């Protein structure tokens, strides 16, 4: 490669680079135009979103698995229709056949937190009822007919629920927070409240 060719190539590269730095809207750069003073972008690219929405199928499956329930024993509107079916779209699913909705909504809807509450509350209430009526599956450390709950039983229940619903161990601070729900509450209400509080945290909905 000859020296004149190299110098022309370097010159062209510099011009192209300068043109790429120019803010948009000032027209194309060319010979004779002044180079911009800085190449800083006019707007910063947003940071990548670190979390994902645990959408319908995953959310329903995870809650049911955590509480050993299924569509017939989990949350049902009016005790008749599975909440997961009724609130499919707000929970992040998409209704392909009914609405021709080929992609789910991009972000949670206004009603999403409320249907999350309904879904988890229905599931927790049903699990507690089932455990009170037969051999307990989730709430074995509580006497669900009792009018009070000891602090130790409350912490043990919270620990079990964190493992089941969030798949991790709770911190002492988190156990203390849930144990406070046991104050002036009977065992059944405490069980549902603890399950609901943990199962509807943002950590249960996002990952």
């Amino acid at each position, binding site marked *: 490669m000859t020296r004149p060719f190299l110098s022309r190539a370097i010159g062209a590269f510099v011009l192209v680079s300068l043109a790429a730095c120019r803010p948009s809207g000032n027209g194309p750069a060319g010979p004779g135009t002044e180079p911009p003073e800085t190449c800083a972008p006019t707007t910063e690219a*947003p*940071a990548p*979103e*670190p*979390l994902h*929405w645990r959408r319908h199928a995953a959310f329903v499956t995870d809650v049911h698995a955590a509480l050993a329930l299924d569509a017939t024993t989990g949350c*049902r509107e*009016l*005790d*008749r*229709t599975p909440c997961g*079916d*009724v*609130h*499919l*779209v*707000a929970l992040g699913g998409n*209704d392909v*056949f*009914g*609405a*021709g*909705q*080929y992609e789910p*909504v*991009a*972000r*949670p*809807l*206004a*009603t*999403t*937190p*409320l249907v999350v*509450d*309904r879904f988890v*509350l*229905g599931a927790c*209430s*049903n699990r*507690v009822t089932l455990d009170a009526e037969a051999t307990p599956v989730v709430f074995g450390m509580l006497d669900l007919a009792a009018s009070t709950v000891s602090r130790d039983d409350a912490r043990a229940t919270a620990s079990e629920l964190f493992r089941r619903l969030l798949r991790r161990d709770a*911190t002492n601070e*988190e156990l203390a*927070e*849930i144990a406070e*729900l046991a104050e002036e*509450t009977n065992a*059944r*209400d405490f069980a*549902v*409240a*603890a399950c*609901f*509080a*943990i199962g509807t*945290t*943002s*950590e249960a*909905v*996002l990952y």
Partner: protein
Amino acid sequence: MNRRSFLRHLATGAAAVSTASALSLLPFRSRAKAAPPPGRKFLFVISASGGGSILDSLLPVAASEVSTPARAATLLAFPDEAIAQPTGSAIRCVRNLRLGGTFSNDYDPADFVAAHFRDLAVVTVENTSVNHVVAQKRAITGAGIDGGRTIMEAVAMRHGDGLLLPNVNLASGGYLEPGDAPVPDRVRGEVVTRPELFASATHGYRGIPRAPSASVIERARSARRNLDAISPLASRPSALRDRYLELRDELAPGLESADLITKLMLLSESPDTPLSEFELAQSPDGPALAAQFPLLGVDRLQTQAAIAFLLVKHGVSCSVTFGPGFEPSFLPDGSILDTPIAFDFSHNDHVTTQNTMWSRIFEVADGLIRMLKTVEYDDGSTLWDASLIYVATDFGRSKERPAGSLTFGSGHHLNNGNVFVSPRLKGNRVFGGVDPETCLTYGFDGRTGEPRRDEVMREGHLYSLVAHALDVDFAGREDMSGLLR
């Protein structure tokens, strides 16, 4: 209980309401007061999914208008007796042809025209896509004339301040899609696919079987907020989490305290939907809605129209979109109200499909308008005076048929027209026209409304018309002042 069985029980409940007695109350009861703040405008988009042909509804060509019977026999032209023109109306329509068969619907479009011709405008258009989803999206974005936002989003931005759910969308396919322009999340469509049970989505715990008392749940919610504050996720900046917590801790209490779970409740008390057993109750508007929409709960379209009315009446929304989807509505006796895949069943049987589906569209539009007229709003007028119905559709259908055939399939065609209903428009007018020799529509001058055979109207004109009528301004809006009252 499966979905159809559940809906059947809802129908039984709805039928239990004395239709006659509820109807008799309507003319005599004083107008209810609307909840939305004054000065708002309301948009209802009814999506005629699949390709609603204007030639088969409000811009028909009579066979006698074509130069020869032989040519008429090859075009989408109707026998003169199939076309109605109610007294006083400048707009004609194809009657309910009562073709019988599988699809049952008695509503006659001629009744719609007779009742609403003063507010009725037919606007010709030539769309830009014959792909359903693309065309549907363009029908609501004006093919991008407003930077890609949908007309529903634009109306929600203009009139939705302070409303809980400014933009609710119950439609399907491309009509359900969000716009392509960045807009605040609050004006994105709240997608609803089960209107009969949507009320339940507006409260986090009321009606949940075997749930503890409200005070216990509120304590649990308080604990949840504390858990979230110390969660491992709290240390990771996340717009998604911020948005979720904002919805949960700021918007949701408003939805709950508005008691929408009662105001929007379309179910009625019955052995199969024992609302009182779960401390729920039917909407106070339930009997009047059941009278206007007798198949409430069974007929998806009627149920959508009912919830659309309630959302606006109670000041929840300023834009509601609904329409038939892919699934037809079945009656408990097994008969079918809609053709499958709505207007697109025209591929199989054009005349039956178009006639059935247009009757369906006009039936629910009629019911919605009548309900809106019962509600006082803004200094003595009614909600209807501040409303506009845009019957959006994908495109038209092919204009020709096998010579003399009465049963045939049709294809997609760009050339068409749309139906608008609003007291804010110059009603009783066809803007543009149709050439009987080709069955192709032609355009008009938006500033004067006068027909222009050399003018081609596009989706952007339709979008601009809605925007203009509802006080929505944007750069590049077409001047449609000639169509405004």
